[in-house]
């Protein structure tokens, strides 16, 4: 493939949105209230919309006769490049919100940089995404505050979720060789530069939500290399079911 590095880079970005979109989509009809159910599925729709434009671009870059659907549905687990955070399950609503907030803060910082990419398509996707992701962050941030600074029970559950998911935050800033190459070429983003702003912003909001900022020194990595947590296989079996059972089916 001519543009292997760019292709892989696009997949990494798209996979984060696809897998988180899939997780949120699981809540369709199962959200804790009608409003939050609609919110989670609306956010899912935005993310999957972004994914589609990334995958369409990836399919074009690949130079092969493939479509966005091939890229989305017909890869093996090891070929998905999403970070571990986004594949974590919807354990309870506190987890859904913590996962969302921890990703949204990163996502917005990331897109703010990606809009300056030399690659016109990536820059356009980023500019479009910034408008949507700002709204996601407002929603998830509000709920972190509401639950953290809510009842004794909601505070306890929110803290539990933040503590459990914290270990996946450092991977957001991990630079693979491909990331490095893309950043050097002015196409990708230097993730290490976002780290300080990220932890500062998250810590501030957690404090406002009367939550403790975890002091964890140990972090989990692997997603960006295709080595996922055990939850990923179950997620993919749902996601890929139709295409695996009825190959090439179309709506």
């Amino acid at each position, binding site marked *: 493939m001519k543009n292997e590095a760019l292709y892989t880079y696009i997949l990494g970005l798209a996979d984060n949105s696809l897998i988180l979109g899939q997780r949120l989509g699981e809540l369709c009809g199962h959200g804790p209230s*009608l*409003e939050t159910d*609609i*919110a989670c599925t*609306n*956010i899912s*729709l*935005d*993310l*999957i*919309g*972004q994914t*589609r*434009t990334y995958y369409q671009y990836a399919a074009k870059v690949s130079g092969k006769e493939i479509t966005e659907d091939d890229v989305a549905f017909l890869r093996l687990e090891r070929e998905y490049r999403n970070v571990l955070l986004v594949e974590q399950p919807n354990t309870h609503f506190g987890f859904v919100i913590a996962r969302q907030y921890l990703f949204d803060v990163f996502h917005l910082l990331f897109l703010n940089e990606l809009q300056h990419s030399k690659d*016109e*398509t990536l*820059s*356009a*996707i980023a*500019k*479009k*995404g910034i*408008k*949507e992701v700002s*709204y996601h962050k*407002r*929603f998830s941030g509000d709920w972190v505050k509401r639950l953290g600074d809510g009842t004794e029970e909601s505070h306890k559950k929110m803290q539990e979720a933040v503590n459990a998911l914290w270990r996946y935050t450092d991977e957001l800033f991990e630079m693979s060789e491909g990331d490095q190459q893309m950043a050097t070429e002015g196409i990708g983003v230097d993730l290490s530069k976002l780290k300080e702003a990220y932890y500062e912003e998250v810590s501030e909001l957690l404090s406002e939500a009367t939550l403790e900022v975890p002091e964890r020194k140990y972090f989990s990595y692997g997603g960006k290399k295709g080595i996922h947590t055990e939850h990923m296989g179950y997620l993919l079996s749902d996601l890929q079911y139709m295409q695996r059972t009825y190959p090439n089916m179309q709506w």
Partner: protein
Amino acid sequence: MTIALHPNIDSHLIETLELVSDPEIPVLTVLDLGVIREAVERDGVVQIKLTPTYSGCPAMDVIGDDLRTAFAKVGKEVHVELVLAPAWTTDWISEAGKRKMEDYGIAAPLEETADKDALLGNKRIVKCPQCGSTNTHLVSQFGSTACKALFKCDDCLEPFDYFKCLK
């Protein structure tokens, strides 16, 4: 008038474009919505540049199909290209579009600062499209489609959609 509003659209195509509406808000044509960024006829083929309101808006696929159908009826072939930049903003909704939206029962987008106040629940400023009262409150930041939020009027007690400002 119509021509001046759409500098990148060949005037003879406007009549057909006006027949294509948003499948979710059928009173709005694609021109009212501002999603047609360019429409020109070259060598017998109509080249259209369409921009999505929101990345995941399912209406875009339908609008693409509807454009092909509408032009097929007048014997023209259409090529639709999806463009992302510059990103769509609610400023591109025409004044006529905003009026039609209100008549249809959807509150039209406020300007950016007012919109923020409304969606954070700070101020009661979104006007109820049923009775005109601004004694309304936010029920949900997300609504029936990606572009709307849900409000309720505390005077006439009717719930209604508010089209969010997108800049």
